[in-house]
């Protein structure tokens, strides 16, 4: 049990483009322990979704992953597509960002859930699969599961559809559940309900969860650890309370500074000047240096690796100087 459930080492993701080689992930090292919830935050384009697509083995053709992604000691990057397919919906499952389009509009909710159950547990009878599916719907807080099973996704609200997606994930009882911004497309009130649901299900669910979010508040409510990504790098990693209370990396600080929830109304909104680095550029120094308030000469030479500092990990050369 000493070995972590998921262990990612030096993961690089590249694609050949007309403008040269694009680096989407630039060497990620990350582990997820059993039963833990890891949050991943970062701007759009920081590589969060690419990271989880790589773990799921659902990369678009043309993308090239190097390094290793070990689940229970098995390197997923070297698995063939049929073995990977057998793993999906079994050991790993995923909840997507947009519940409006993630379910098939022309099949009943029940059909889609039952197919997933029968794929996961091939010996299960149709009746048993239907029963499990409707139980799962109750578990995620949908009343009248018989009717919901007969409904088409278009007849459900966004929140209900996301509950159906969560039910689908629960039915698989995966070791790792990936939730890719599951609340971004929902109203704020519904978002709170879904987060609350995930928190309650946490106790019942024995696996680990990777939770991707823009919203640091939801990460704080739900996660044990948080990883901050920027430009295809992991720039900070630590216990969620520590990182949010005392962010080390200048990017984490800036990101937390941009949260608008409890800022006074008369202050202009904070933002990080500059833009996310181009994937085709390969600057020699720190990836965040061009936008960093603390950048010094040392930052332009080499990308600093993640290093331990005050119980957290951060990839910054000037941690001692700036804290």
């Amino acid at each position, binding site marked *: 049990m000493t070995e972590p459930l998921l262990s990612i080492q030096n993961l690089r993701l590249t694609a050949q483009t007309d403008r040269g080689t694009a680096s989407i992930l630039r060497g990620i090292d990350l582990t997820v322990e059993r039963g833990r919830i890891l949050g991943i935050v970062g701007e759009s384009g920081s590589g969060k979704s690419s990271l989880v697509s790589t773990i*799921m083995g*659902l990369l678009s053709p043309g993308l090239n992953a190097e390094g290793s992604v070990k689940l229970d000691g098995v390197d997923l990057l070297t698995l063939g597509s049929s073995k990977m*397919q*057998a*793993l*999906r*919906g*079994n050991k790993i*499952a*995923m909840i*997507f960002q*947009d519940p409006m*389009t*993630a*379910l*098939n*509009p*022309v*099949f*009943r909710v029940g059909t889609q859930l039952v*197919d*997933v159950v029968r*794929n*996961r547990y091939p010996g299960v009878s149709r009746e048993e699969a239907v029963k499990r599916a409707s139980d799962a719907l109750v578990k995620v807080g949908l009343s009248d599961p018989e009717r919901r099973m007969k409904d*088409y996704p*278009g*007849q459900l609200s966004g929140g209900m559809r996301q509950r159906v*997606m969560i039910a*689908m994930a629960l039915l*698989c009882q995966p070791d790792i559940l990936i939730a890719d911004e599951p609340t971004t497309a929902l109203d704020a009130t519904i978002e709170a309900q879904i987060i609350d649901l995930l928190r309650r299900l946490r106790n019942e669910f024995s696996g680990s969860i990777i939770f991707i979010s823009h919203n640091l508040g939801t990460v704080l409510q739900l996660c044990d650890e948080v990883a901050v990504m920027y430009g295809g790098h992991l720039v900070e990693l630590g216990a969620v309370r520590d990182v949010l209370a005392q962010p080390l990396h200048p990017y984490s600080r800036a990101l937390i500074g941009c949260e608008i929830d409890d800022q006074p109304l008369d202050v202009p909104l904070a933002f990080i000047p500059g833009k996310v680095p181009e994937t085709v550029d390969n600057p020699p120094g720190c990836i965040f240096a061009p936008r960093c308030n603390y950048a010094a000469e040392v930052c332009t030479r080499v990308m600093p690796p993640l290093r331990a500092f005050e119980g957290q990990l951060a990839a910054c050369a000037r941690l001692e100087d700036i804290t």
Partner: protein
Amino acid sequence: MDTNWELFRPFGAHETEGAGRLRLFENFLFNRILTAVLSVFGAMLVIVVLLNMVPGDPATALLGPMATPEYAQRFIAEMGLDQPIYVRLWKFFSQVAVGNLGTDVISGRSVNAIVWNALPHTFALALASMGLACLIGIPAGVYGAVHKGSIGDTLMAMVSVVFVSVPSFILGIFLLIVFSVMLNWLPVLGVSDNATLGDHLVRMILPTVALALGWIGLIARLVRTSMLEALGQNYVRTARAYGLRENMIHYKYALKNAVIPTLAIIGMGIGRLLGGAVLIEIIFARQGLGSVLYDALQARNFSVLQGSVFVVVVIFVVVNLLTELSYSFFDPRIRYNRR
């Protein structure tokens, strides 16, 4: 061809809309049937006017140049051709209203009987052709989309274009020459003189293939396009994320979405083929609606022509109506109402 989606929309929450939905459906059906009746009426008007302008009058065509003017005059009066168009239309429709398509003045047979004898040939050929076209075209389209850019896909694209662009009667003659004349594998005549089912089927092979090839190409191209779109949708990614088998994803989850835009073309194809594949029926000497139309036109036999064109138009309109209704079978979004 355009479904009136708006008709299905403006009703509220779906638990209380049972009665409302039924009323909407009745509205829809009433509208459609009204449109259908008007289409039939309009088509008949055009046909009768056009027939009136066809050069060569039936008397000369049938009786020959040696007929006495009096005799020709009497003949024309018997066919009702001396009367103005609106009177002829009125007569025709009042007959049709009681289920009578008229009488063939030349042979004395009822047009009902002539059409009735021809219909089985036409239905068998049309349904077999379209069935074959779907059976091959749909999987071919799925294959092309799934293996986009492969040699098989490229090859199929080329073959499809050939199938679509070569007229079916050329294909028919070509098949006839190769398989019946040169190889002597299949009979030349497309219809059996003895009535065994096996012989009927064997003789249907060539005309069916000749008609189907073009539709195979068209359906394959259309399914490929809509399938490519479906495969890029999020629900396909979801199905993959839950480890469903690719075959199930392709043929169940993606195809049902991809088939919807193809329905219109399949429906139109059935309608057209039922309207008589005139040239193919002539090449293979099948006594279907197409042959009846052709013979009647050759003979300027207006009574038969009117009656059979009417049947063709009605079939086409009915098939189109059924096509529209079939949308709601494949696409539940038409059945229930979204906000």
